[in-house]
């Protein structure tokens, strides 16, 4: 297990290095740079700025400086926000995105497993048909639509009670987190429901379920002890990438609900060609994704003994 974990971590580091390099190359291929942004600067100021940020050096040297800084955990200073270090931006705003994302994943995973199992039990009967219809909706409708609908719902709810029960936007308390995390998790929940359903239907026909019934176990016990644990394996597998996708892809929901998460800075930085912020957030997100996948792989080993021991 330890060797397995170390191997995965090593592969993870290589992946992150690859992401960093690819981003660096891609960014320098894009025409323009952060200094030719809005107002024209004179040649001298420009030269000074380039010297300050190290942009006057050859690209390969810039690459190694960047790698060196990255290794010491320093992503540099933002080009567009005055004297703001990228590390500070990540530190201030990533936890918000992370909390939102993890809550969303929590909703998605519990909901997906629950609805998936339910539809499998009621296969081809009314609950199955209704839920599977909603699942198709959840997969095909984009999140900003759900975000707007969610806000509308909150507005109506609050006006019904004549006071603010649940805040419509903003960030701070658990009540602020409820609606955006549900909206953010909805698509993933729909995806997981489908996965769980097909996985459950497969497990129900397995021989060991017949054995469990022949042993005289109650249907509830068979469901929890024998079906669920085996059916949940494929769901766990996709959970890793889904966690990262939700945590990093939440900027639409963050914008609609006015949540000061990292997603907004990421998008802004790309628009303004803010080299250091792009590099910092991309590498950070990349490392986060890799870490999540590794954690899920290790988790998988605990649930499926075949993975753990081979």
């Amino acid at each position, binding site marked *: 297990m330890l060797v397995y974990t170390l191997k995965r971590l090593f592969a993870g580091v290589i992946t992150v290095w690859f992401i960093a390099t690819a981003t660096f190359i891609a960014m320098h291929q894009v025409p323009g740079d952060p200094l030719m942004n809005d107002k024209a600067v004179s040649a001298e100021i420009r030269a000074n700025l380039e010297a300050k940020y190290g942009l006057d050096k050859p690209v390969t040297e810039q690459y190694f400086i960047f790698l060196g800084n990255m290794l010491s955990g320093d992503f540099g200073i933002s080009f567009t926000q005055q004297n703001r270090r990228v590390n500070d931006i990540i530190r201030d705003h990533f936890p918000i995105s992370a909390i939102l994302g993890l809550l969303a994943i929590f909703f998605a995973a519990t909901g997906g497993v629950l609805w998936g199992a339910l539809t499998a039990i009621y296969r081809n009967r009314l609950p199955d048909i209704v839920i599977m219809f909603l699942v198709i909706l959840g997969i095909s409708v984009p999140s900003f639509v759900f975000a707007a609908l969610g806000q509308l719902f909150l507005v109506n709810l609050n006006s019904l009670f004549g006071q603010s029960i649940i805040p419509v936007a903003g960030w701070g308390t658990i009540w602020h987190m409820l609606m955006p995390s549900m909206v953010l998790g909805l698509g993933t929940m729909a995806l997981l429901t489908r996965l769980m359903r097909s996985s459950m239907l497969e497990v129900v026909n397995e021989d060991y379920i017949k054995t469990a019934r022949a042993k005289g176990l109650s249907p509830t016990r068979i469901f929890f002890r024998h079906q669920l644990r085996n059916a949940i394996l494929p769901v766990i597998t996709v959970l890793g990438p889904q966690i990262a996708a939700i945590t990093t892809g939440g900027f639409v929901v963050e914008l609609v609900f006015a949540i000061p998460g990292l997603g907004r800075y990421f998008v802004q930085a790309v628009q303004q060609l803010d080299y250091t912020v792009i590099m910092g957030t991309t590498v950070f997100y990349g490392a986060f994704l890799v870490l999540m996948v590794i954690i899920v792989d290790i988790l998988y080993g605990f649930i499926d*003994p075949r993975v753990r*021991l081979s």
Partner: protein
Amino acid sequence: MDTILSVKDLEVEFATYGGTVKAVRGVSFDVTRGETLAIVGESGCGKSVTVQSLMGLIPMPPGKITGGTATLNGKNILNLPPAEANKFRGVEVGMIFQDPMSSLNPTMTIGDQIAETLKVHRGKSDQEAFKLAVELLERTHIPEAPKRAKQYPFEFSGGMLQRAMIAQSLACNPAILIADEPTTALDVTIQAQILELMLELQRTENMSIILITHDLAVVARMADRVAVMYAGQVIESGTVDDIFYRSSHPYTLGLKEAMPSNTHDRDKSLSPILGSPPDLFKPPVGCGYCARCPYAMTICAEHLPTATAISESHEARCWLHHRTAPDIEELHQLEDQDAG
């Protein structure tokens, strides 16, 4: 005799898109204490469906038990809700299956799976149940049982898994062990070991065995009594000697003819039974074997033969045993051989 299980006129149907399949069409048999009843027949003859419907294991729908009775120690066991059925499943009747590789939960240790039965039915604590599970594994001759009990099914070989399955089915000292083709998925040397183990446990536990198989060699080795099934019916039943030495149904004769032998007549080619079993979407009006039977008469296609007693222990469903039927040489030859 001490009859434990009594099945009468059991009928099972499956509703499919193509229509209703009458998989079991009036099967009756008794099982007495300590004996082995072998149910023999080719694929699709309804032997597995028969025992699975007794255990409440056929999915309903599409399956449906449409007729008959089955009593275990005098109590009805057909069409019970799960809570009722679980009073005898795993307690009074244990069951093992064809493919041990897929019959155990891959994410639970062997010991936990055996212990589960004891926890549910005997109210044992976790530790107690696990200790008993280890003892059960020892009884089925699994070496290093304490260590093996902590392992998962994928760490076991096929033969070892079938031993573990047997240990699991024995957990509550059942009166009957139903073995649904227990050796089909195993290689021949392991087969012999598993059968030996079943015979040994039958002696020590004084339990009955219902053995489902299509292997006549296994039947000869294991069974006290045999029921031969064809097209959803028992067409001949009797003691193992009745079936092998006094075969009274053309199908049983055909099965024996089709069996390779290594004693005499080695140059003789095997004679398979030609044709295929009838379509059970539209079960034949007369005898199911009629279309393949070399001795078929007009009446065979028109009327279902009733069971005729040949001796006290021996019955066959065949018009040839009617008093007005012509004599069939083969049937007599065999009887002569036996007498001589």
